[in-house]
């Protein structure tokens, strides 16, 4: 008989059994097991193993906490995920810039024809200063104005996107702030007997100073002064 057949047979006999019969069997099972447990505890013969959390690993004889409790590993995961997402975002922004550039290229192809047409219209409106021609000329001038506005808007859009790209540097700065937190945790890790993480990853040197962005201009100026003074001193 196949396994599935055995399961089906068991299920069918379970379903056909009376409810009272099942309950009495379950009661008896529970009573029997409680008795065994009580006897073992009284005699001290059996040590009941502690239930280990799910995903616990045994490494070099030590019991590590479940993955979710490994703070350093979790922080590494957060920085890795944020880096991935920021890279995806960056890719989308790059795609947007490429699309704008492609549209601009098309607009640039049309522009000479529009300019030529404008010359013709200038001449035409001077030769035939009728109301209908003047209206048409006005309409065409508006089209040209809109065309120029689209090109300007494209430039503005690209600048917004470039500014957004520059702002994505926050990810690296935040990552280094997290690395600082990790270095503190790793010091604790020594005391807390590998409780926080496996600590196998080769880490970057931790940043000593991370700039307060509100003082960035002042810091940039100070950096320039240090660099300039250094080279002045070298020359002297």
């Amino acid at each position: 008989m196949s396994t599935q057949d055995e399961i089906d047979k068991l299920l069918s006999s379970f379903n056909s059994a009376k409810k009272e019969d099942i309950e009495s069997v379950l009661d008896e099972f529970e009573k029997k097991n409680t008795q065994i447990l009580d006897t073992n505890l009284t005699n001290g013969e059996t040590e009941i193993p502690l239930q280990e959390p799910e995903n616990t690993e045994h490494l070099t004889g030590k019991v590590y906490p479940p993955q979710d409790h490994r703070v350093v590993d979790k922080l590494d995961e957060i920085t890795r995920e944020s880096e991935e997402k920021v890279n995806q975002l960056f890719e989308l922004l790059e795609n947007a810039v490429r699309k704008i550039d492609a549209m601009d290229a098309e607009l640039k192809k049309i522009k000479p024809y529009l300019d030529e047409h404008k010359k013709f219209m200038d001449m035409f409106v001077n030769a035939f200063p009728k109301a209908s021609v003047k209206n048409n000329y006005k309409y065409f001038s508006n089209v040209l104005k809109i065309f120029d506005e689209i090109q300007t808007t494209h430039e503005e859009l690209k600048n917004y996107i470039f500014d957004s790209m520059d702002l994505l540097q926050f990810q690296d700065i935040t990552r280094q702030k997290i690395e600082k937190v990790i270095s503190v945790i790793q010091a604790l890790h020594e005391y807390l007997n590998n409780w926080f993480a496996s600590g196998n990853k080769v880490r970057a040197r931790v940043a000593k100073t991370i700039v307060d962005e509100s003082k960035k201009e002042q810091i940039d100026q100070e950096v320039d002064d240090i660099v300039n003074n250094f080279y002045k001193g070298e020359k002297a």
Partner: protein
Amino acid sequence: MKIITIDDSSTMRRIIKNTLQRIGYGSDVLEAEDGKQALDILSQNKVDLIITDWNMPNMDGLTFVKKIRSMSEWNDVPIIMVTTEAAKEDILEALKSGVNNYIVKPFTPEVLKEKIEVVMGIKK
């Protein structure tokens, strides 16, 4: 101009590469995750400019700069350090080790362009 950018953050490498393109220096950019990988790349490629981070695993930026400066073929290549380190003693240490100019993150395209032009002798 051939440039190598060294940073353990793929986001930063991407930002630097993109910024270089925007300021007109992005036609030929190599990338390395740390100093060790950069040395491997430089053993097979000639570059005109090195842009390196400081804090990286395996080989940090300062160790990399010292190594590079000890090699005769790389003695003169301009190096810009782009890092979060903003303490005066760190900047001086980097300069003494052979860094030509220094940028504190986050940077703007204008600052990167200006520093490149200074180290490349385009701007005095």
